[in-house]
């Protein structure tokens, strides 16, 4: 297989990268890990004239904690770097596990957090858990920087809010009162499988009462989606098995899956129901593990 010809540029700074993206416009794509982009190019689904590589931008690679801000995950961090990061393992192991659920070791050493988000594949594994943790996207452009809720980042399959010349620089998981989070993926193989459905949840629980909750669904809508009606079932209530069952049912009802070769609408709804219950139980019982 052949990757169609393109011009390769590797800017030395984020600003330079943004300037190049402005200059090349729609004929350019950002090359982060390449594990998704190069596949699409080999398949002939994408023929960018320019690839703007982030290879030299080490500032986008770090995973660190900043007091008052939270955990900052550089967009160039690979899935394995997320999975093995001590800070994340201590604070939000659920994020590490979501990274671990992806593809296989070789791809996790190439693929990046930024790539996973910017490609905006509906079945992507990181967005649900990051949105459940109220993550923000730090976006850098030639005219400055903006930070938005990751929840608002996705517009549709392959579509995000990134404007011409903008780069996703980092993901921020803010300090939060949540007491637990979890991501469960259902794939048709234990490695190298896309999610048929994935459910992430985060909860704030005290005295047996759910003070706050987020349920985020993957692979069952054009974008990762909050199951807000389901959240409302649980929020502010005393936690019970019946209530969690109800949450699962409502999440299934409000999901918007399609039928494809990995699963039908009905089956995906069933999975949303089951996984929502399981994810919530795990988040409530096990914290952020």
């Amino acid at each position, binding site marked *: *297989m052949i990757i169609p010809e393109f011009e390769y540029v590797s800017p030395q700074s984020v600003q330079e990268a943004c300037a190049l993206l402005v200059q090349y416009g729609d004929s350019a794509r950002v090359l982060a890990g390449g594990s998704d982009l190069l596949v699409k190019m080999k398949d002939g689904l994408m023929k960018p004239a320019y690839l703007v590589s982030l290879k030299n931008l080490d500032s986008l690679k770090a995973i660190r904690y900043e007091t008052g801000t939270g955990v900052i995950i550089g967009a160039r961090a690979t899935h394995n770097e997320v999975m093995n990061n001590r800070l994340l393992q201590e604070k939000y192991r659920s994020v590490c596990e979501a990274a671990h659920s992806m593809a296989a070791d070789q791809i996790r050493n190439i693929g990046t957090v930024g790539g996973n988000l910017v490609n905006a594949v509906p079945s992507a594994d990181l967005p649900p858990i990051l949105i459940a943790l109220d993550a923000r996207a730090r976006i850098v452009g030639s005219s400055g920087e903006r930070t938005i809720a990751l929840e608002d980042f996705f517009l549709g399959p392959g579509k995000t809010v990134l404007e011409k010349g903008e780069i996703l620089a980092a993901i921020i998981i803010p300090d939060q009162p949540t007491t637990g989070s979890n991501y469960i993926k259902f794939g*048709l*193989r*234990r*490695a*190298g499988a896309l999610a048929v459905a994935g459910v992430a949840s985060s909860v704030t629980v005290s005295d047996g009462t759910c003070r706050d909750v987020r349920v985020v669904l993957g692979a069952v809508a054009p974008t990762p989606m909050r199951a807000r009606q389901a959240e409302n079932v649980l929020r502010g209530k005393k936690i019970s098995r019946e209530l969690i069952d109800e949450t699962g049912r409502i999440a299934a009802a409000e999901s918007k899956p399609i039928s494809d*070769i990995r*699963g039908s609408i009905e*089956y995906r709804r*069933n999975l949303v129901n089951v996984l929502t219950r399981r994810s919530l139980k795990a988040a409530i019982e096990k914290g952020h593990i």
Partner: protein
Amino acid sequence: MSEATTKEFSVIGKSVPKIDARDKVTGRAKYTGDLKVTGMLIGKILRSPHAHARILSIDTSKAEQLPGVEAVITAKDVPATFYGISPARYDETILAIEKVLQVGDKVAAVAAVDEETAVKALGLIDVEYEVLPAVLDPLRAMDEDQPQIHPQYERNISVEIHQDFGDVEMAFQQSHLVRTDRFQGNRATHVPMEPHAAISKWENGKLTIWSSTQSPHYFQYHIARVFGLKMGDVRVIKPTVGGGFGGKLEPSAAEYVSAALAMKTGRPVKIVFDRKEVFFHNRGRHAQHIELTTGVTKEGKILGVHGKYIIDGGSYTSLGIASAYYAGAMLPLIYEFDHFKFDCFRVHTNLPSCAAQRGHGAPQPRFAFESQLDMIAKELGMDPIEIRKVNARRPNTMTLNDLKVNSCEFMACLEKAREISGWVGKKGKLPPGQGIGIGCGGFITGAGYPIYRTRLPHAAAIVKVSEQGDIATLYIGAVDIGQGSDTILAQMAAEAIGINYEDMRIVSADTETTPHDFGAYASRQTLMSGHAVKQAGEEVRRQIIELAAELLEASVADLDIDRRVIFVKGSPEKMLPFETVANEFFIRKGPLMGKGSYTPPKLGGKFKGAAVGTSPAYSFAAQISQVEVDEETGQVMVTNVWDVHDCGTVINPNLLHAQVEGALFMGMGEAMYEQVVFDDKGRPLNANLGEYRVPTALDVPQVISELVDSYEPAGPWGVKEVGEGATLPTMGSYANAIYDAIGVRLYDLPLTPEKVWRAIHERKKPS
């Protein structure tokens, strides 16, 4: 009891390392795609985007003008000879002549200085198509309103089989219970890790092809025929091959097109398929739609069986005629019954061609049969193993379709599988959601007849001892595609001669330097090539002993050889080293060689299709699987599989168990994960290894492979089949274990979580 248990062997029966293992673990082993021939061009094939279309025009002028392009060919540039591998059904051409019959069909080809140029050139070829309605549903393929794909096959019927043994209607009348069930198989495919590849060189009127092949002989035969060359002017060489499983038994476009391009350019041309092209070429499992009716007595004795099939052959015949016959022929093998009717239509569709895959036509019917047998046992209140024992084939019997079974330890397989799996403590006693199930199988040890009519022996071997007598080289046409035939045949040669495995060298699978052999298919080489090797080795041994007798002044009858020492039996001090005698032999008489060949006895009955299923020997196997089912998602986790195989004498235990493990792994993929699916235009939706899901190391159960003591009189040293037999029981054993776990019966392969969930869901609905 058997020769195997009474005679001590020196070389066979030992897990010697594979003869090519060191090259393979260091990256030195060269596969076809790794080879570089001086002046070599890269060939690429333009493939049809339509499932069924008339080619109105092809304009290659722009492609020809691209710098670096050396040739662009279409059907008008190549022989129009129809080819195939089923005799009398040759219906494929090198490049499509008038119509394309599937997405991915071969339309034109390019040879260029590198892959990138070749790919660019493909993009510059303009083809005008008239898109025709396509046949995509095999169950509708015979309908009047469907387009006819091949002019010569009316109603798209590729082959129609009606075999009738005994009186099945009478058998059903006499039955206590008659069940009819419908089953549906899947389009699985081989997925050899190495894609198909060939390099063709045309020099001095001679064509040399390095190819990833399972049979240099069939390749040579068909390629010579298509290009109008004598067989002696076509040389097929097999480098290291990265798996075949049935998919590399006939030449593909890799060979035909590279040869055509080499002839046109005068330069060597390499074609390596990308993964999508492997899916287009396919030749994988036929999806079989099976209606199975079985009648039994109240004791569970099978009286009669009627199988009605429609099977999806795809675009071209390939080896599909045999596949269709095998779908019936193997059913009466492992259980004894007298009345059997087999009706089968293999139909053409505008989908990739189906042919032989591990187990050939037999695994899906076996899935149906093993599933139904469990349903019958349930209705009769019998244990699934008991009903199998009631019907199990015995040694030295003849099946109703005239297959002669010599050794058969199927009963022992059943007993041992029951014991090692802990069946008695588990069946019906596992916690909710867990279950255990059995499936069985049996398979041929080489086909009784070659694929085309010829009187050639099935296998032949030459052994040549070096002048110094230190090593011996086995020249053999048998084909190592990874299963290890080079290793076990070298072991056999060493055993027969009386030297060590380490003394053996092997030259194999090159039509010019090695003697004829039909190749790696139908689990034939250990027995058939093994016979030829044993004979060749023993001829060397006889010549060495005759000379040693002279040198030792002893009688021939008193001498023996063991691990390079020739000695007088009873007086081991009277001895000579092998090399001394071999060296003396060369000095006195010239090369020390032995040769052997093997032709099976005349086998089978007289009815139409009687040749299919014949074999010198048959293997038998019982497999038990244990599963855990997540009833909410339908996800099935197979935790353990126990396989007990009756495979005769074992030449190399490690390699033998590796064959069982690999065969049941392929069965597992087909049972649970694998299916090629298409959109409504006949385009494959998962022609890649991300969405066509071969199980990973995380998906497979713990596997225990065990054997029963067995000796096959038709095999050299008592050997018989192992490479395919273990694929057959897996699907049925999984389906039966799932039933045991959750009480739902699945009829459609693969047994995906969604299907399991739906079946549970249906059951829960109030009726």
